[in-house]
């Protein structure tokens, strides 16, 4: 038994027949080949699979694809526009806020969700918001610096953080 869903993914409506137990993560990775969202634990603990659903960061491994029906999903692949990086992506590069890169998509999307709600987060607020995104490489310092720098730039230019 499958169910027909239409999800707007990175601005494009995607219609598919999915099994009711298919997770949003598997739908994105297997059916749409959007592999930027990673499977790190499949139990909502590591944050590597975070995507934005209606602008809110969600662990895609914990959401069913059918729950995303009619909603708007943004993955890491949808951030850069015509080859121009989102300021947050640029700041992650500038601050060396990544090493192996496996947690990076989730880290960036969680941050984006935070900045949409709170464009001027304190360091403590950033730490809390990102505490569900595990990184084993960086020790987080350069990630926190990148987030603050990006937040400042996004405020300065007057652009909203989330798309």
């Amino acid at each position, binding site marked *: 038994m499958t169910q027909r869903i239409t999800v707007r993914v990175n601005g494009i409506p995607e219609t598919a027949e999915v099994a009711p137990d298919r997770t949003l993560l598997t739908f994105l*990775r297997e059916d749409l*080949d*959007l*592999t*930027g*969202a*990673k*499977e*790190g*634990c*499949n*139990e909502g*603990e*590591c944050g*590597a699979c975070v995507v934005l659903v209606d602008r809110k960061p969600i662990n895609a491994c914990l959401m069913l694809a059918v729950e995303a029906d009619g909603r708007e999903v943004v*993955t*890491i*692949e949808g*951030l*850069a526009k015509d080859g121009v*990086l989102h300021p947050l*992506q640029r700041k*992650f*590069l500038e*601050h*060396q806020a*990544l*090493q*192996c*890169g*496996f*947690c*990076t*998509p989730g880290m*960036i999307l969680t941050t984006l969700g935070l900045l949409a709600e709170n464009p001027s987060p304190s360091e403590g607020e*950033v*730490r*809390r918001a*990102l*505490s*569900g*995104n*595990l*990184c*084993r*490489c*960086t*020790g*987080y*310092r*350069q*990630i*926190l610096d990148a987030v603050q720098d990006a937040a400042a730039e996004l405020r300065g230019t007057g652009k909203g953080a989330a798309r």
Partner: protein
Amino acid sequence: MSDKPTRWVGTEVPRVDGLEKVTGAARYTGDLKFPRMLHAVVVRSPHAHARVRDVRLEQAARVPGVRAVACGKDFPFHVGIYLKDQTVFATDRVRYVGDPVAAVAAETPEAAREAAARVEVDYEPLPVILDVADGMAPGATLVHPDLGSYECVPWITPKGGSNVCNHLKVRKGDYEAALRRCAHVVERSFSVPQVQHVPIEGHISVARMDGAGKLEVYTSAQSPFTVRHLLSACFKLPHGDVRVVVPHVGGGFGGKAGINLEPIAAALAMKARGRWVRVLVDRSEEFYAVVVRQGLEATLVTGVDKQGKVLAQKLLYLWNCGGYGGYGVNVVRAAGYTCGGAYEFPNLWGDSIGVYTNRPVGSAYRGFGMQEIHWALEQQMTMVAQEIGMDPVEFRLRNCLGPGKSTVTGQVLDEHSGRIDLCIRKVAEELGWGDGRKEPNRGRGIACAVKAPAMPNDAASSVLLKFCEDGMLEVLISGIDIGQGLKTVAAQFAAEALDLPFDKVRVRGLPDTDLSPYDWQTVASRQTWATGNAVLRAAENCKQQLLGMASRAFDAPASRLRLANGTVLDPETGRSLPFERLVMGYQFDDGHTIGGPVAAAASFIPEGLIFLDPETSQSPKPVAKWTFGAQGVEVRVDPETGQFTVERIVGCYDVGKVVHPSLIRGQTYGGMIQGLGTGVMEELLLDPQTGRPRNASLTDYKIPTTEDIPEKLEAHFVETPQADGPLGARGVGEHTMIPTPAAISDALFDACGIRVTRMPITAEKVRAALQAKKKEQPTP
């Protein structure tokens, strides 16, 4: 080595794999699509120790959609990098909970799970050994009754008829006589539990054997060539018929060194010819089923004279290797020849012993035994200093290694070996050591670190440099960028040596044993140094080719020409040729053409390494290089609850040459936080009776998050050039997590007078120690 100013090395170039990683373009093994890929499930032992009476696969094979089933009877082949003590699947016995017994591959994950549930295994449970003391006890059950007959490298000494899989003896001077002359003697014991690497990408391998018999493996691994070599040896295939490709790797930390899931994937692929088979572990299995860090029980005796010079030092390191020691035996060895850490001990008696138990398999882990032994040794040094009333920093400086000093193996260090004293002084200065500041419940601590690459003497790297038609340089390496920034560093060395604009260099992945030049392994903090050297050599060769062609083109002596920003320049005439006019051969105006596509391969192998003496471990040069460093921490303790906060970590390492400032800072911060994790929160817990894991999930096994990191992380570097380092550089990747736990422990002692000797330092242990101290010294 050169004092010439550099253009790219030492500067903030962009990370060359950054763009693909922030856009989601970077593909990891699990992101690749393979047509009609089969899904595997591994049947793992629920027993920590048992005889395997029988494995029956018939019911499993009958499940619709199953394409392959395999067990030990099918592949009774041994595998292991240094000691071949493991088989692809258990044959006669299982030795830890999670030991692979069989595997199935099916069209869907559901069918594979169903089939795995129908594999029937008859076990006969055996006594379970979880601690090294039990493993060493006379008459202990043997985990490997056939140990004496296993194949191993000549520099490993398993003791058949016991549970000792390796024993390194270090004997220097006359320990007993020196001990009798000592004014003070301190004896203490320390322990470190097994911990897990916790890469965010778990282990995963995909394999196919095609109709012609060629085996292809895509895998998340640190060492494609070592995987190929060990697969070839295991399945008796020519190396040329095995291809290993490594896409992006989502963290390794040693856990993806050597060989892991690849033999299982290969075995199933051989049973389902022509089909891709994917094997992976789920997050729970990642904690116990593949590899972990070995546990350590250490006992140290230190004798000092009245002036604070250590005269006699004894060290016993007992390593809990778990069920197999294929890789772990070399951790035991490394801990032996580094047993004295960053200090000179004229009279030393050291034993490093690896013991089989029925715990998960101990293997390589960032630091390769060094964090564990420094946990013991560094705390011991502080305690000895306190015993004689000397400042711990002063005591360290009095006893530490340096040029002209002799290591535990009798190697005399020279001016290129790096300077621990400068690192200690820098960290002490940054912490304000000796400023007399003492606030209640706050403390400071300092610990040192040293490590050498623990690798076979012939561990080599090679690279290939070639050009595109537009003059862009392509650098092929087989070292893996597991996050440390190897690709960026390789590009820096290449651009430096060929004076190219940085964006005219591409470092090629994915390492592919069919196409890429040989590299032993991405381990041992060796890549910047080994691959860096090979890149410089290959670049020099390319440079000579370019100069040779330009010399004929200009009709000028090559010695007069030089490379300048992607051109060859004749400074006398001002004539220049861009690389694109040369790299495919130079054509004169009349049409005749010389040279040809510019390309060069080059290698690096450490020279002059001498095996350890089998009885004393003495050797004038047992390892290629040493990297020294120190860390200092500041903590704040809540004396009621035992909760404490590490507020600051300051590190200083002698790296020879800072190749990329913000990359090395990031690597250092990352190491400090991994060090903090193992130091204060991480421990793989097993049920004491059954040996079953009790915290095999990210819910129960915590690693540091953004909320756990100190307010301040600081990284400093000393640059004493390494004689054989590329522009003087030496490795530092692992060293960054070595001293952190010991420094934290010392800081806690400084803060509230308690000492935790069993890692991790949890709030519970601190509180218990505070209460015990209160009972000992009732408040007046």
